[in-house]
């Protein structure tokens, strides 16, 4: 017997039911994988939501100030430290000093204080 081309090509075809079984199997597997993938996506999404919620809560907790222990006494405030201004000593011409003093003399009433023998009695004389 010689296996010629005709005989080789004439080998029987699988039955129609065999093709149908393959199709059914493939589509079933595709649907199963889709279901698994969708379920995995749902789980991943839920996990992501939980993680986000936890992260949000942690962030909120860090922002709100925490109540400290009750205040029993207040520490006194530190005194204000004032740096005195540096005095400017301007040397004046001695000739002009008296004039300057007079010119800048404040307009105050002249008070004459007179003491008596009694230390408890003092006479003040104000001159305008």
């Amino acid at each position, binding site marked *: *017997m*010689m*296996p010629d*081309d005709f*005989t*080789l*090509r*004439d*080998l*029987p*075809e*699988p*039955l*129609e039911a*065999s*093709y149908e*079984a*393959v*199709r059914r*199997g*493939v*589509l079933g*597997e*595709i*649907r199963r994988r889709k279901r698994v993938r969708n379920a995995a996506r749902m789980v991943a999404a839920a996990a992501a939501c939980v993680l986000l919620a936890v992260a949000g809560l942690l962030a909120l907790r860090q922002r709100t100030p925490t109540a400290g222990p009750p205040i029993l006494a207040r520490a006194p405030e530190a005194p204000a430290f004032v740096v005195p201004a540096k005095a400017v000593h301007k040397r004046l011409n001695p000739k002009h000093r008296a004039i300057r003093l007079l010119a800048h003399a404040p307009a105050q009433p002249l008070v004459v204080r007179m003491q008596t023998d009694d230390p408890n009695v003092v006479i003040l004389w104000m001159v305008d």
Partner: protein
Amino acid sequence: MTNCPSIVAVEGPADVLARARRGDETAFEELMRMHERQVLRTALRLVGRLEDAQDAAQEVFLRLYRKLRVFGSLSEIRPWLYRVTVNVCYDLARKRGRLATEFPAGEVLVEGSQEQQIRLDQRRELLAEALTYLPEKERAAIVLREIEGLDTAEVAEILGSTPATVRSQVSTGRARLREVVTRLERRRK
């Protein structure tokens, strides 16, 4: 009330591929119908058992489903399917050890006497069994070149070899097939 003529969209094969790519199961089923004979028949010639061939065909189509985005047109699918079918069958054969042989229930009916029919069936059965005794490369070359009717260059591309190698494999395979058939025939007598 006026009667509007219903508009039926004529769908080309390219639409089927595009719809299948978008995840349309009906379109993918249509794609399977277009290629199932090629895949299951090749797998059956390569693995020898219908059950194994169905498993292989199923795996091939699942791979096709995953790779749908790769194909630009339908013409790219056919050679790819041959290549993947051959590879899946090689893997299956390695996994299951020696190939089992089973003569599948055929649909081919030849007119003639019952005796002639029986003789023809026996010849086919012997050939189908003999095919499974060939080394896998030779078997693939014979199946694609002699049974599927692909040209040598196509077979070479599918098997990842050269046309010269394919010609040599087909020639050696045919000689070996003849030898195996004779031996099997003698054993049956």
